[in-house]
Each structure stands twice: as structure tokens, then as C-alpha cells.
């Protein structure tokens, strides 16, 4: 059974190779079939594995020794357990839906780019699978960087556009900053423990001092910041909207950004042992949740809103991790995967229909043109806003409850963020689907519902968004109904022993749940009513609105504080230090010799008298030097 695990990444890899090498000879249908089919095949295998794990528990399969030195051995090994099998399902499941969707969405591309696109997608899934399947931190890191690469390739997919390329580069570089943290953590672990395999690391955790653990977890978290777009390394994610919309869906839902969550959940034991880091994680998550939400309030690009909402939702997940609600975080990953994929694919459907118009101010009233898209989108909005019984409600609630138990302040701020989420999601929904159409005549003429390859995934995801939450029904409603928690229990076993989940009084929980639901509902009503009659105006925003619209000027800040000084420093090095400084020094040695040569030449005056004079003087000096025992000085002092 365990050998089956090889197949999971193998299929996407094959897909990548076939599509990549045959992108010129294969037909579009063949390409999309191969692309989707491989992921689907992985999904099927994942399902098998999932049920295997469910009944038999996890296992590790070693492929070969990747690095085997005298100091340590890093096997190329895959670990299938509860956590990874769950992620496998999310990745391959949603992945295959997105592939299917893409088959239609990218239809306009030339065949070879079409092939390239599917190859990248497959590679993306492959990398993510490696990340999740890896049985040690190094293999995880391989996937970790791999998804970074794929995001780079896909964000810059339309490489003729230089803005997109910049966005792609930004994504990669920001990820690399985080990756450095991850890498250092791996070194630290290797240095202290001599192994990077999860099992051995967690078993040897007692050998680590608390400083080591804090440092390792902090460094790992820096890695997570990059990959999962947390403050301060989040700015790449909104820019990543440059890629094709299904890619955004893939990045935001199934792959990439969830990597950070996965990694911390995987390392939960370490984090539980590092309270300082936990606090850091929680605060960072919370801050990101709020901060991104405020920005999302004023964004007008349909994808940008979604992007910031992802950042914000990821913040919640980190909050969950920070307060020790690992299951809650993973749960939210799952539900978020459903509705965020749905939202993006829905947005893609809209964009597709609007001929690549992404400004929601120029949309409106699409409800009647695109019913399926509309309905599914609405469901997703409800899910993300946290309206019961949609999936988002359960997961978000679980996190917030845990946050309350840890520190009520977390909870209140968290709820504030949830309110904003509700507001901006329904602002988006309203501006897009309700009201009047605000686009051009021509656009209106062409607006249409998308083909089946696109709507079928929407429908499937909508169903999942609606019912997905039921795997994690709180204890409150039914005893032992939280099947996810039970399923994942072995993973978080160690942490659970160390820090038992505090339980709130049922009354309080009900009150919190009810209160927040009502507040959210009010907020939705407010948003819908406010933007229902929205008309396109020329006036620009001022004050806080403008700051929000400009995303708190964070990019500008980064430019001013990091990018520009670094560039200036580089220029200084290149033009001043290198040229005049170091090379100047080297060259001046040569010049000195040349100068000396010209001067020494003059000594050769051509006059015999001078020559002999110098000879005589030299003789005198020689004698003086030779008899430096003051004999001569003594004599001279006698004379004079």
C-alpha cells in the first residue's frame, strides 16, 4: 500500500513532462486531458491512501537516499499520515477541478502556450505534493521552493507584459526571504539533532533547549510568512493576481499559501513547546487578518479583493495555530480551499465573460446573464462571511473560540475582522452581480454564462462550500461530531498532551456564536444596501479611503526602506567602490609603477659626472652603514 504513494506525485510529474515536451505536437484537447487526467489520477490514489490511513494509520516510504553524508542522512522519503493525506485530497481534488476549469478558461491561448500552461500547473501540483508528502524538512523544502518557482512561472505566464513579470519576480523574491528563514531552521535542526526527519525530530525534541526551539520555530515561521503571505511578507500575493485566474485559485486554495499552515501544523509539537513563538504567530496572524481586511474594503479589482481576503483568512489560520487550535487551522484551510477556489473560479468566470474586465465598478447586474456563476459565488460569499451553516462558519468559529480561550482580545479583534470580511465580500458581490450593468455596450452584448468545463467545478465547489463544514461540527452541537478532529488527533497528539484545549462554557459559546452571526448578517445587509445603487463616479477617494485604496502605501514603504536603498547601495558598490575603490587600488599600483618608472628614468641623466657622484655618495653611505657602531659618528663629533 505504501508504494502507492509514489504514484501521487508521479502522475503530475508525468503530466508535466508530457505536456512540457509535447506542447507543440499535442492538440489542445490532448493537453488538457492529460493535464486534468493526471491530477485526477492522483486524486483517486489519494482517496485510496486516505482511506488506508483512516483505517491503518500513517506510513513512511523511502525512495532513495537524497543526501547521505557522514554527518547526516536525508532520505528522499514520503510520509503518508492523517495530515498529509487530508492535504493530498485538498490539493489533488481542488487541483483537478481547477485543471478542468482551466481547459476552457485558457482556450484562447495558442497551442504551445496552452501546453506550457498545463505543464506548469502540473508541476505546481507536483511541487505541492512533494511539500506535503515529504517525510523530512528537506523534502518539504524542495516542495516549498518548488511551489515558489511554479508560482513565479505562472504569475509571469503572460511574459510579454512586464508588469506581470515584475509581479512574478516579486513573488519569488519575497518567498525566498521566507525560504531563508526556513532553511536556517532546517540547519538548526540538523545541527542540533543530526536529522531532519519528522519522526526523529519530534522524538528528539527533548534534546533541544527552549532557546533552540524558540529560534527554530521563529525561523520556520519566517518561512511561513513568506509562503503564506503574512505581514510583513504578504505584498506579493495581491500582485500575484497577474497570473491567469485559475492559477490564482490554485495558489490561494489548493497550493502554495496553505504550505505555511501545513508546515506549522506539521511541526505543532515544536510550536507548542515555544510559547513565545506561538504568541508571535497569533499576533502576526491577527494583525494580518485585520490589516488585509481593511485594504480589501476599498479594492476595486475583483481579484485583488479576493487576494486580500485570502491574506486575511490566512491570518485567521495563523491565529488558530498561534492559539494552539491546530485542528481549527487545518479545518479552515480545508473550508477556505473550497470557497476560495470557488470565489476565484467564479471571478474567473466573470472575467472571462467580461473579456478580461476586472474592475468591479464597471460590472453590475450580472446575475441575470450568469445564473450559475451568480449562485455559486453567492454561496461562497456566505461561506466566507461565516454565516451558518456554511462551511466557513464552522471553521472560523472554531478558531475564534480557541482564540477567546487564549485571550479575549484576540477574539474581539478577530470578530472585527470577520465583520469586515462580510462587508467587503458582499460589497464585491453586490457590485458585481446586483444593480445595473455599468460596462460598455459591447461587453453587455457578449456577456454569457461560461461553458460546462467551468461551471461544473463551480457547482462541485459550491456544494463543498456548503457542506464542507459538517466534518467539523463543534462539540457544542453534537458529541463527537467533529470527525476531523478525531481523524487528525494522532498528529496533534503530542501537543494535546502538553496543552489541553480549554473548553468554554456552552452558554458563552452560544452567545458568542449568535452574537457574531447577527453582527455579520447586519454587516451583509449594510454592504448590500449601500452598494446596490452604486453608480460609476469620477471622484477620487480622500483621507483614509485613499490610504486603504492605496493599500496603506506598504509597497511604497518597502520601496523606500528596502528596495531603493539596496539599489542605491548596489549602485554605490558598482560605480564607486568597485571602480574607484578596489579596482582603483589595483590599477593605482600599476600607475604607481608607471609613475616611478618615469621618475626613476630621470636618474639616468646621461651625465657621467652625476653617475660617479651617486656612486661615491653610495660608497660613503655604505661605509657609514657598515660601521654603524658609532665609530664614525664618534670621529665626526670629535671634528665638529
Amino acid at each position: 500500500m505504501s508504494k502507492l504513494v509514489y504514484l501521487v506525485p508521479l502522475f503530475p510529474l508525468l503530466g508535466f513532462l508530457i505536456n512540457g515536451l509535447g506542447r507543440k505536437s499535442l492538440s489542445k484537447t490532448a493537453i488538457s486531458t492529460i493535464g486534468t487526467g493526471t491530477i485526477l489520477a492522483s486524486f483517486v490514489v489519494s482517496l485510496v491512501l486516505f482511506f488506508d490511513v483512516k483505517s491503518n494509520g500513517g506510513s513512511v516510504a523511502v525512495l532513495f537516499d537524497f543526501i547521505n553524508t557522514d554527518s547526516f542522512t536525508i532520505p528522499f522519503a514520503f510520509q503518508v499520515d492523517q495530515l498529509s493525506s487530508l492535504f493530498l485530497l485538498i490539493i489533488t481534488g481542488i487541483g483537478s477541478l481547477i485543471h478542468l476549469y482551466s481547459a476552457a478558461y485558457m482556450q484562447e491561448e495558442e497551442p504551445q502556450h496552452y501546453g506550457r500552461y498545463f505543464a506548469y500547473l502540473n508541476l505546481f501540483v507536483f511541487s505541492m505534493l512533494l511539500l506535503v508528502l515529504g517525510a523530512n524538512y528537506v523534502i518539504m523544502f524542495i516542495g516549498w521552493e518548488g511551489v515558489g518557482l511554479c508560482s513565479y512561472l505562472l504569475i509571469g505566464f503572460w511574459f510579454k507584459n512586464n508588469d506581470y513579470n515584475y509581479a512574478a519576480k516579486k513573488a519569488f523574491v519575497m518567498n525566498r526571504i521566507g525560504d531563508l528563514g526556513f532553511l536556517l531552521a532546517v540547519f538548526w535542526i540538523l545541527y542540533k539533532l543530526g536529522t531532519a526527519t519528522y519522526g526523529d525530530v519530534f522524538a528528539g525534541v527533548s534534546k533541544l533547549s527552549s532557546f533552540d526551539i524558540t529560534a527554530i520555530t521563529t525561523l520556520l515561521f519566517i518561512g511561513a510568512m513568506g509562503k503564506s503571505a503574512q505581514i510583513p511578507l504578504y505584498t506579493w500575493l495581491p500582485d500575484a493576481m497577474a497570473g491567469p485566474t485559475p492559477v490564482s485559485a490554485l495558489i490561494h486554495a489548493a497550493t502554495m499559501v496553505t504550505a505555511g499552515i501545513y508546515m506549522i501544523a506539521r511541526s505543532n509539537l515544536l510550536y507548542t513547546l515555544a510559547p513565545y513563538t506561538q504568541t508571535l504567530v497569533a499576533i502576526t496572524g491577527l494583525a494580518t487578518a485585520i490589516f488585509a481586511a481593511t485594504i480589501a474594503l476599498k479594492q476595486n479589482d475583483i481579484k485583488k479583493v479576493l487576494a486580500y481576503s485570502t491574506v486575511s483568512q490566512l491570518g485567521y489560520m495563523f491565529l488558530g495555530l498561534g492559539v494552539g487550535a491546530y485542528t481549527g487551522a487545518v479545518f479552515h484551510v480545508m473550508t477556505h480551499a473550497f470557497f476560495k477556489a470557488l470565489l476565484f473560479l467564479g471571478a474567473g468566470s466573470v472575467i472571462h465573460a467580461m473579456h478580461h474586465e476586472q474592475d468591479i465598478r464597471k460590472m453590475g447586474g450580472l446575475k441575470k446573464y450568469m445564473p450559475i456563476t451568480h449562485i455559486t459565488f453567492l454561496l461562497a460569499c456566505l461561506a466566507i462571511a461565516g454565516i451558518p451553516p456554511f462551511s466557513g462558519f464552522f471553521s472560523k468559529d472554531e478558531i475564534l473560540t480557541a482564540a477567546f480561550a487564549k485571550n479575549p482580545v484576540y477574539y474581539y479583534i478577530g470578530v472585527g475582522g470577520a465583520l469586515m470580511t462580510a462587508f467587503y465580500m458582499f460589497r464585491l458581490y453586490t457590485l458585481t452581480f446586483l444593480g445595473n450593468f455599468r460596462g460598455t455596450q459591447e461587453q453587455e452584448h457578449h456577456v454569457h454564462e461560461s461553458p460546462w468545463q467551468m461551471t461544473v467545478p463551480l457547482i462541485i465547489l459550491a456544494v463543498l462550500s456548503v457542506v464542507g463544514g459538517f466534518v467539523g461540527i463543534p462539540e457544542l452541537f453534537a458529541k463527537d461530531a467533529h470527525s476531523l478532529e478525531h481523524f487528525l488527533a494522532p498528529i496533534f497528539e503530542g501537543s494535546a498532551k502538553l496543552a489541553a484545549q480549554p473548553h468554554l462554557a456552552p452558554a458563552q459559546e452560544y452567545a458568542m456564536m449568535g452574537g457574531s452571526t447577527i453582527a455579520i448578517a447586519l454587516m451583509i445587509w449594510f454592504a448590500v444596501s449601500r452598494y446596490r445603487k452604486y453608480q460609476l463616479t469620477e471622484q477620487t477617494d480622500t483621507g483614509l479611503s485613499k490610504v486603504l485604496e492605496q493599500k496603506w502605501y506598504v509597497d511604497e514603504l518597502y520601496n523606500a526602506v528596502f528596495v531603493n536603498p539596496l539599489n542605491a547601495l548596489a549602485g554605490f558598490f558598482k560605480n564607486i567602490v568597485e571602480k574607484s575603490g578596489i579596482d582603483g587600488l589595483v590599477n593605482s599600483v600599476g600607475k604607481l609603477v608607471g609613475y616611478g618608472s618615469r621618475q626613476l628614468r630621470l636618474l639616468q641623466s646621461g651625465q657621467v659626472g652625476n653617475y660617479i657622484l651617486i656612486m661615491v655618495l653610495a660608497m660613503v653611505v655604505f661605509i657609514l652603514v657598515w660601521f654603524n657602531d658609532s665609530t664614525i659618528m664618534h670621529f665626526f663629533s670629535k671634528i665638529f
Partner: protein
Amino acid sequence: MPIQYYIYLCLTLFSIGIIGVLTRRNAIIVFMCVELMLNAVNLLLVAFSKMHYGLAIGTPQEATAGLDAQIFVFFIMVVAAAEVSVGLAIIVMMYRNTHSVDINFLNRLKN
């Protein structure tokens, strides 16, 4: 006669020769000053010869002590004669070409 006296005398003559070489421009005079230096050396050698002879009186070396220096002086004179013939020939050749024996005039070759 204390040997120092001879040494002082010869060194003085020798230095006068050097000063002559340094201060005169006429190649012939310069050359003559060199001859003066050689003569100073000759005198010194003879003086030393007699000194060593004096020291060796009554020792087995008596028969030969000091002899070599005088022979050396003889050879110096021989060499000086040969040098003079060549030197004057060169000076004459120079004079033929430039109508001058001024050594400051010799500065085509420099730097």
C-alpha cells in the same frame, strides 16, 4: 714612519682624484685624475709592503714579505699603461667626431 701617515696621504691623494673626476668636464683631465687615484693606491701598496716587511723581519716570511705588493704595483702600472692607450684612443675618436672632449656633451644616451 707610522703607517697611518701613509694611509692619510694616499687617501688624500685618492680623494683628490675622485674630486677631480667629479668636478672636471674635460675627459682627458678626468682620466688624469683616475691616474692620480691609481698612483695613490700604488704608494699605499708600497707603504704596506714595507710595513709587512718590517713586521716579518726575523720570521720565516722575511724573504717574501712585502714582495707581492710591489709586484702588484708593477702590474697596476702595466694595466694603467694599457688603459691609457685605449682610453686616449677612444678620446681621440670622440674628438674626431664631435670636436670636443667635454663629458657633459655626452648626453645622447639617457633616461
